[in-house]
């Protein structure tokens, strides 16, 4: 019993990281209709930014603030000067160009930091475990769940309660309409892309103390984000949240039954969702 | 929310289906009030999108080898009815019958193979393929298992090839036989749009605004084409151009706010007070 509860908590933490990656992917696709295969690379950059900053300053909190911001700025520049030229080309070429970009970023990471993964220690305060009666749980993972929950709430408020959020939601329905309202759609695009990169970078920073930073983590994260999006339904915030948590929990609970098969079960779950609800758990037809 | 709809769907579906079947002729040749058998019929068809009712209990009967036009102001539900007939969206309740068979839940491609072909309101061709290849593909769709022949050259499928050539001649597009469909003029593309439906060898053609965006001269050509086709085809026509509709239709169904307002031959519809009211607004 205790074991499963721990696995559920683990799954929740991992699931929230998946959510952060997938939500960026989903809003970028929702408003810009742009398929970003380099999204996993942002996650990779986040993890390495965490490593570099924590290594240099010894301060995880600085890394938590600066890492995602750096990735976000990188994403903004990339969108502004490079990817924005791709909006009119068919999806296939967007996929190929961003796939090429992901390869370049991955290989650059190997060149800079070497092919071997780098471990990253959690911050001082959150090392060790917390004891609840006869139940012990790593402090950092508790922090992760709490922090990402607050983050999800903040993101929800940003999307639901601010002018930017309103523009974004309107843009998901009809980009043309938004431009007709006199809003500079290209600025919205840049902002959205930067936000997506920021969130993926944040996921990378948060995941780093758990799994370290290694150069080939990008593609795995991308595929998981796709599964989340397929399970939850593309284009919706709630879909990414539900999908992320479902995938995280399935993965971690299954790992205590059948450790080799935990990863398989994610995809079996996805196949089931596709067969039973082709548009995802929360997707619209 | 989706669940709510589907629950009410099934409830409404059962009740309406019962009455609708009783109202429908058992087969296509059963004569109602006209002289020709019913080819395609909708009985008690309703369609809801969430809370919005796009079609409310619509029944029409399309008789064999007639031109049956569906008209109405924007938002009257013409396109939704058309989509229910062609299978793009399933009706919330009600029954669609074709040649005496219930096809309400039949998929788009199976309806096509039963002999119902459609054209599109927004030109929807094989832009990068030649005119003849598009027609050949349409004709090939009807050849059944031969479509799965993966070893002989496609030109050897003589049936499809000769059907395509004869439709090409019927459309008077011989000169443009080998150019890409996307390079035709708009008027020619509209003609080819109808041609692709025709080439499939279907007995019934559902034409969605064939004259959309056409110039005056081209409209005349299209009009003549549709009339010529009606000699051996049953035609359902959605059309905005009143001149065309009143000129060539056998029967006209006027829709308004999701329901059938008036149905009858052009003379009746032309002078019907409700039709004027629907088009010009309630104040008149």
């Amino acid at each position, binding site marked *: 019993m205790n074991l499963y509860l721990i696995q559920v908590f683990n799954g929740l933490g991992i699931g929230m990281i998946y959510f952060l990656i997938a939500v960026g992917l989903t809003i970028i*696709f929702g408003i810009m209709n742009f*398929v970003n295969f380099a999204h996993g690379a942002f996650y990779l950059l986040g993890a390495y930014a965490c490593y570099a900053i924590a290594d240099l300053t010894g301060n995880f909190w600085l890394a938590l603030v600066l890492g995602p911001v750096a990735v976000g700025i990188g994403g903004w520049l990339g969108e502004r000067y490079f990817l924005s*030229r*791709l909006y009119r080309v068919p*999806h*296939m*070429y967007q*996929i*190929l*160009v961003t*796939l*090429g970009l992901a*390869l*370049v970023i*991955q*290989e650059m990471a190997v*060149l800079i930091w070497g092919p071997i993964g780098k471990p990253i220690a959690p911050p001082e305060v959150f090392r060790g475990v917390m004891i609840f009666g006869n139940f012990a749980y790593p402090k950092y993972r508790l922090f992760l769940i709490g922090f990402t929950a607050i983050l999800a709430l903040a993101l929800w408020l940003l999307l639901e309660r601010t002018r930017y959020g309103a523009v974004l939601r309107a843009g998901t329905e009809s980009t043309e309409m938004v431009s007709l309202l006199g809003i500079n759609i290209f600025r919205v695009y840049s902002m959205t892309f930067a936000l997506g990169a920021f969130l993926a970078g944040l996921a990378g920073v948060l995941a780093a103390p758990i799994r370290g930073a290694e150069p080939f983590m990008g*593609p*795995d994260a*991308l*595929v998981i984000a*796709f599964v989340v999006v*397929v399970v939850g339904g*593309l284009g919706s915030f709630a879909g990414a949240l539900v999908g992320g948590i479902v995938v995280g929990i399935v993965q971690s609970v299954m790992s205590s039954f059948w450790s*080799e*098969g935990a*990863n*398989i079960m994610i*995809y*079996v779950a996805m*196949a089931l969702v*596709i*067969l039973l609800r*082709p548009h995802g758990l929360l997707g619209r037809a | 929310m989706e669940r709510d709809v589907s629950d009410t769907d099934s409830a409404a579906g059962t009740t309406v289906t019962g009455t609708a079947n009783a109202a429908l002729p058992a087969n296509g040749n059963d004569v109602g009030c006209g002289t020709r058998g019913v080819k395609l019929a909708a009985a008690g068809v309703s369609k809801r999108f969430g809370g919005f009712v796009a079609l409310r209990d619509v029944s029409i009967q399309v008789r064999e080898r007639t031109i049956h036009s569906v008209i109405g102001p924007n938002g009257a539900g013409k396109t939704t009815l058309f989509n229910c007939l*062609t299978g793009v969206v399933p009706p919330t309740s009600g029954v669609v019958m074709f040649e005496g068979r219930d096809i309400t839940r039949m998929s*788009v*491609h199976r309806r*096509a*193979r039963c002999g119902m*072909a459609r054209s*599109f309101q927004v030109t*929807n*061709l*094989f*832009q990068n*393929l030649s005119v003849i290849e598009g027609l*050949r593909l*349409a004709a*090939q*769709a009807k*050849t059944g298992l031969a*479509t*799965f022949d*993966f070893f*002989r*050259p*496609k*030109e050897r499928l003589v049936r499809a090839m000769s059907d395509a050539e004869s439709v090409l001649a019927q459309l008077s597009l011989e000169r443009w036989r080998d150019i890409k469909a996307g390079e035709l003029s708009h008027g020619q593309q509209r003609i080819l749009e109808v041609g*692709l439906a025709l080439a*499939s060898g279907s007995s019934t053609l559902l034409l969605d605004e064939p004259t959309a965006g056409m110039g005056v001269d081209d409209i005349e050509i299209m009009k003549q084409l549709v009339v010529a086709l009606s000699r051996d085809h049953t035609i359902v026509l959605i059309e905005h151009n009143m001149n065309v509709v009143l000129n060539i239709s056998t029967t006209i169904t006027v829709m308004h706010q999701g329901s059938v307002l008036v149905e009858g031959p052009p003379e009746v519809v032309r002078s019907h007070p409700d039709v004027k009211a629907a088009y010009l607004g309630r104040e008149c």
Partner: protein
Amino acid sequence: MRRRPLLLEPTFLASIVVVLILPVVLPSVAMATEALIFVIASLGCTLLLGYVGLLSFGQAIFFGVGAYACGLALIHLGASAWGGLLAAAVISLAAGLVVGGLVTQRRGIYFVMLTLACSQMFYFIAYAMEDITGGDNGLLNVPRPPLLVFETTLLTLRTPMSFYTFAAIVFLCIYLFLQRLVSSPFGSALVAVRENEDRALAMGYNTRLFKIAAFAISAVVTGIAGALYALFLNFAPLSNIEVSMGERIIIMTILGGTGSLFGSVLGGTFYVLLGNLLSAIWPRWLLVLGLILIVVASYLRGGLLSGVNWIVEKGRGWGILRSFAVRAWSATFRIRTPPRAQP
């Protein structure tokens, strides 16, 4: 319209020429063999991408499954080389039907995501089934029995050249088969799906069935390539079924150009040559590949195929370059009659 017999189609003749010159031009016969194997894998991808318009990131599934099936048949059933290929074809066909049935539930970007996810799923399955696949270590000691035809040894498959000949025969058969397929009624229906799926559906094509069928055929072709690879390496590594293998297959297909089957011949050869040369001098050569992919996807959408075409067309006024380019081009493409020995 008079048709040339398919055996004399220019690109098929060009393929024969390529098969003949590859072992001479490339640094080693082994590299030529590897090139041909990836050309076959790329042909499977071209069928999907070029003719049906389906971008599948799941080609590694079939490549890997084909390699495992062939290896297992040879090790455990003592199958012949033909039997190994047959096992690969049958198992990949089954995998193609299952995966195709699942991924064609959705279209567009969802389809792409699903192929990627399925690819990852098969990777984890292969990884977990260590007893059968050898897991991380790969399937070791795949034998390479001599190739028999009616009890007579046709090829020993012992020397590089002997194995190359085998790969070349398989390649030419597959090329010919696919060439017939793409110009058949079935092939034209695939093109209809690519060009306008909704219209094809409205005309009565069960487009999903066609997509699944194309998937299955592509799976068989890719699986045979995987089987040849297992025979070639005497081993079926886990990396065969990794997502990155699928990406490699897509990249070489795009590099070559998807406008015709011959693009695969250019793309597969180019990729293997580039990979071998660059990785020898710089282990991070994927960086270069990423840049090439970006450039090709941005500026050279038709791939090498269109690049070669462009050079030939522009070359017409350039004197020496012209005559060189045109001659080289005609040597590979414009041959009207098969080369014949003088009496």
